[in-house]
């Protein structure tokens, strides 16, 4: 298999275990540069684990995630790790103001961009909280600050783990608008969501993950409208009850 020229990541023969339990078994997955890959699947199917491997936070027990045609080296060099950033499912705030949390990634790079920070907070309707201690925010506010903190870096690859869970519709719209802007800038996005509608709205390709294995990966419209795997049909049917 020759590396796809425009591949951002190639997951090759990856098997990842926690103790004796295999949490991810992925012979092959290509993530194309500039595309948005939606990952859906039930809880515990390995979605978040896949993001950790792509971010380089964990080394696969077997196999490798290839970047630019070569396996990701460990420890991950800064030049690679700084191309990618993750918005975690349970984002943690630093014990600082909202402003300092959003500017944190920039500060790590020795940069300051107060205007960008403020613009992001404006767009996420958080501007009034700019000086508030971030630890005291509500869950939905923290989720948006975490997205702003990642977006401030304008990374080449954005890994989003349930970025709009627990948000009200107005804020879902604000978050999705930012994601669309990143798409327009050519950012590669991996979007983990339990919300099939969100995947449908945002993802170019969608992957169904179950028990650590890829059930089906296809163009989003194809996967949702004419799934080829019976398990996909069952999963979507179950989801569509909601």
């Amino acid at each position, binding site marked *: 298999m020759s590396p796809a020229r425009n591949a951002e990541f190639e997951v090759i023969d990856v098997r990842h275990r926690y103790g004796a339990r295999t949490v991810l078994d992925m012979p092959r997955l290509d993530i194309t540069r500039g595309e948005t890959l939606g990952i859906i699947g039930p809880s515990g199917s390995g979605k978040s684990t896949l993001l950790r491997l792509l971010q380089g*936070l964990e080394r696969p027990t077997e196999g490798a995630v290839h970047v630019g045609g070569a396996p990701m080296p460990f420890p991950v060099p*800064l030049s690679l790790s700084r191309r990618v*950033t*993750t918005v975690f499912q349970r*984002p*943690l705030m*630093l014990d600082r103001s909202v402003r300092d949390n959003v500017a944190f*990634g920039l500060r*790590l790079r020795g940069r300051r961009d107060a205007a960008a920070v403020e613009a992001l907070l404006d767009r996420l309707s958080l501007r009034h909280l700019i000086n508030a201690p971030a630890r005291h925010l509500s869950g939905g506010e923290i989720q948006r600050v975490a997205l702003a903190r990642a977006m401030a870096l304008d990374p080449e690859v954005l*890994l989003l783990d349930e970025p709009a869970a627990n948000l009200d519709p107005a804020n879902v719209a604000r978050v999705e608008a930012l994601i669309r802007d990143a798409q327009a800038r050519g950012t590669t996005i991996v979007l983990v969501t339990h919300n099939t509608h969100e995947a449908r709205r945002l993802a170019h390709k969608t992957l169904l993950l179950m028990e650590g294995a890829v059930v089906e990966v296809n163009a989003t419209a194809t996967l949702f409208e004419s799934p080829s795997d019976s398990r996909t049909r069952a999963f979507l049917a179950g989801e569509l009850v909601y």
Partner: protein
Amino acid sequence: MIDNILRALGDPALMAVVSLTFRVTGSALVIASALGVPIGALVGLTRFPGRRLVTLVLYTGMGLPPVVVGLVVYVLLSRSGPFGPIGWLFTPSAMVAAQTIIAFPLVAALTMSAVDAVDPDLRFQVRALGATRWQTGWTVLREARIGVTAAIVAAFGGIISEVGAVMLVGGNIEGHTRVLTTAIVLSTRQGDFALAMALGIVLLLLALGANAVLLQLQGRSR
């Protein structure tokens, strides 16, 4: 009695004792913190073989009886001891050395617990935002700053009130190695209770000041 206490408080000799107390305890605290905070943070942040042993040693060190530390430092610094030639015995340097040994495990162990208490997931999230190893460690240490401050203040409280070690290795020589605690012991023995009380009040005020600083630092981050 009150008059005598007030008179004792105005005694210029008292200032010399307070000043030496500050210099000895302050130096020991700075050295113990400069070593203890990074070492405690490192032990708290990393996983390595023997970590449990290091933790055990640090925790045990927190309970070191000062008089035993004084004894060991005395033996090491005595004329026939291995460090005899440097001539530190009965000097403020010996007192700083002994208090540093008492303070170090307190600073290191409490820093370690403070760093340990920070959500381990934070390290991953900070790294995912592009932090280097050092930046990650520094960020976690900063998150633990209240605990680290408490570690330093606890060590301060431990050594400023300590009498056994400084008495042994300093010798309580007037104008040379006499600090607040050793002066209190001596004044009490001599029956000069007013002076002993005055010294005790000063010691308490110093402790009060230290805790006020802690509260101030904690308040700033909340």
